[in-house]
């Protein structure tokens, strides 16, 4: 019988490893907010997300709550991909990491891009842009939490896209976190989205 030999050295070693890490509240927010929006995601759409979200530079100014919420959207959709086949307790189980490229339909749907917009007093927010033909019904955003930011995932082909947020069905606003788009046709507020190749 092997005994549990926790002597002074092992005790010290274990204690040096047991300091609880500083927890980034944003990380906790990401997960808990994920739970809130998770049920609104359709698994078929989510299938394209895995792998993409690990890319480091999703957008420019990526700070604070808004970015966290942006992460939530991709994070949740990524989860829909990985979660289905969870087999618990198999020592050697490795879940294949699917990428959008591995998904036959990904090329036609485009790359999933998380969108987030902070509008506390808004009653509704939708994303409109050339990736959804500026159709205000195509991409409604979901509020994260009780009075958190609005979030959604759009699917856009790699390259440059122009978009904006439509608040309460009437007011078009540019994304403050993305570069402004110059529009020679209509002018007005819109932003640029650079979508990476998956």
């Amino acid at each position: 019988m092997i005994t549990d030999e926790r002597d002074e050295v092992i005790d010290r070693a274990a204690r040096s490893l047991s300091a609880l890490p500083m927890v980034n509240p944003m990380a906790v927010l990401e997960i808990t907010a994920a739970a809130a929006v998770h049920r609104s995601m359709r698994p078929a759409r989510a299938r394209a997300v895995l792998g993409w979200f690990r890319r480091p530079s999703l957008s420019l100014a990526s700070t604070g709550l808004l970015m966290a919420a942006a992460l939530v959207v991709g994070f949740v959709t990524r989860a829909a991909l990985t979660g289905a086949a969870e087999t618990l307790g198999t020592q050697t189980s490795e879940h294949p990491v699917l990428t959008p490229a591995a998904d036959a339909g990904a090329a036609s749907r485009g790359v999933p891009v998380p969108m987030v917009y902070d509008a506390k007093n808004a009653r509704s927010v939708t994303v409109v842009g050339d990736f959804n033909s500026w159709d205000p019904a195509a991409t409604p955003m979901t509020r994260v939490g009780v009075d958190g930011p609005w979030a959604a995932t759009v699917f856009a082909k790699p390259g440059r896209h122009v978009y904006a947020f439509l608040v309460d069905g009437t007011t078009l606003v540019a994304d403050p976190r993305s570069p402004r788009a110059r529009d020679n046709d209509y002018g007005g507020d819109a932003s640029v989205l650079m979508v990476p190749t998956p």
Partner: protein
Amino acid sequence: MNEIDPAVPLRARAGDEKAFIEIVEYYYPRCLRFARNMLGSDQDAEEAVQDAFVRVFDSFPRFREDARFDPWLFRILANRCRTIHARSRRHQSLIEYGDLPVSAAAAPEEEEFGADWAEEVRVILETLPVEQKEAFLLRHVEDLSYEDIAAVTGVGLSALRMRVKRACDTLRARLTKVEK
């Protein structure tokens, strides 16, 4: 280690999102600690923990009413860590910018023993076979019983005891050398 009120996971299983939030807030620090110790990288650890919680969320319908939550959670987390560990090993020749090793940011508690000593523990930990490291961390850092570790890993008790013993032997031998 205190476990969460067993009613909370059951509420989460029934679809109560507040209960899920409670679980995340309760277990996140501990899960992150385990993942950091397992993977040696903050970035990988956060990824593992996030993935694990999402899988927990997805897998709640399969959480049995009579089961204990801790081993179930760590089972999912340990699986994620193994997967990410295997992936990292495949890519270990690549330098990933922005992915500082955990040792670069020493926790204040490490000062109790001196940063060098804590660093040495981590270095030795990295050299252990992953199954030994996992068993050691679950037993001596996460304070799980061997029965719970068996539930987490799916490995028999005697094999687990052997893994922990071997990890302890290696740590003891090398740490004693450092002290001399």
